[in-house]
């Protein structure tokens, strides 16, 4: 199971992005500044956008899902309950997890952006996909929800999960780090080795590395462990 980007280039009106690399099974974190091309790359990986040049090859992937930054796009159900059903999942468990069980007859569009994102991610993460692309999964979420989503992502043991984010506070356990810088996608390698080369690393990680305390991973508990290491 893998997604291979072979000399992929995307360009439009004075902006371009080039990408080369192989996404294998595991959790991949792709970071980059706003406007660097994270969403474009997410769509390219999923085959929802053809590249200007080069090829995107998906091998052994029979199911895929892309979670857009704005959860409204995914809404097809008239009620929150129907929305869960439209994802092919049992609403009871998901609505309990998303803390929305008592509002299941409401329209999803009556929820706040944060609540809708919570519901959407609960639905997406309730199923297993060979390729799961999450575009800014932490936007609109409070710290507690980010933590919950990070735990759910960290529990994924099969398939390829690609997280596109500019988040600097909360991260799930990740296997590989990539980043988009100066119009190109860079593979920084596997964690923890990738952390030293990670340009978009949060300040706390940079400071820990500067003190010679390289964390095992980038979850809050890993960072705490590294900070307390003597």
């Amino acid at each position, binding site marked *: 199971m893998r997604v291979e980007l072979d000399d992929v280039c995307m360009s439009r009106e004075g902006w371009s992005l080039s990408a080369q690399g192989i996404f294998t099974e595991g959790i991949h974190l792709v970071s980059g500044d706003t406007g660097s091309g994270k969403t474009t790359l997410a769509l390219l990986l999923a085959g*929802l956008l053809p590249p200007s040049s080069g090829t995107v090859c998906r091998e052994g992937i029979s199911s*895929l*899902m*892309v979670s*857009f930054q*704005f959860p*409204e*796009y*995914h*809404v*097809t*159900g*008239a009620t929150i309950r129907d929305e869960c059903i*439209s*994802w*092919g999942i049992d609403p009871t468990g998901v609505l309990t997890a998303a803390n929305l069980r008592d509002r299941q007859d409401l*329209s999803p*569009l009556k929820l706040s952006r944060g609540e809708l994102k919570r519901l959407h991610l609960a639905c997406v993460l309730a199923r297993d996909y060979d390729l799961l692309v999450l575009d800014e999964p932490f936007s609109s979420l409070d710290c507690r929800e980010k933590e919950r989503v990070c735990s759910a992502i960290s529990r994924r043991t099969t398939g390829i999960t690609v997280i596109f984010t500019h988040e600097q506070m909360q991260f799930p356990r990740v296997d590989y780090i990539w980043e988009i810088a100066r119009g190109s996608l860079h593979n920084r390698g596997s964690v923890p080795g990738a952390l030293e080369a990670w340009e978009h690393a949060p300040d706390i990680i940079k400071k820990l590395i500067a003190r010679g305390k390289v964390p095992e991973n980038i979850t809050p508990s890993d960072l705490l462990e590294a900070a307390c290491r003597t």
Partner: protein
Amino acid sequence: MQDVRLRTAAAVLLCISAFISIPGAVAAFLWWLVFAGRFTQVKQVRMMLPIVAMVAFFSIVLALTGGDGASYFIRMMVIILIGFWLYTEQKSGEFLRFGVWLLGERAGFELGMIADMSMQTLHLLVRDFHQICIAETLKGIHPGWKTLVPAGFVLVNGALSRAESTAELMAVRGYHDGGSLCPEFITPRMDILSTLAALCVLILALIPVSEFFILYR
């Protein structure tokens, strides 16, 4: 065409010409072929097909009820082509400059700003609709007539929410009415030529052609 004033004037002249008569519509279509005709651009606009279908439907109804459905279809199609040309050529901020130039810094500014905001909303609606179709496909739902209602809810809800946020932001920033702007326009010779050609099209539409061609009568 770079000058929004001439572009809008040309579009108005051509739409009137197309609406008046079939010769006017044919002349407007020829104008479109010469000065604007980009079939690839038309194909790219996703709204084209449903609008053509809608016009075709009304033309058939008109024909069945004794009207000239074919004439209506031809004239409306040319008007739609001109409309799409105007839509694809439009650049952000143009209507604001045009409004201020035409009607001044109070009513002109307001109307121009509303027109610009409407165009921006239209662009966003097209983008949102595209994203919704992708999301539906990912869920295993094939976009079609049945999915138009939920998609419509999302689009209307999003547009209203954006409008509310914009209104709040403008109020917070102290916007009351009108504004100051010094509109500047670039007017290439080709723009003047195109507009004059559009004027000729209108004259052609207004002149009873049969008066000149005895054999035609």
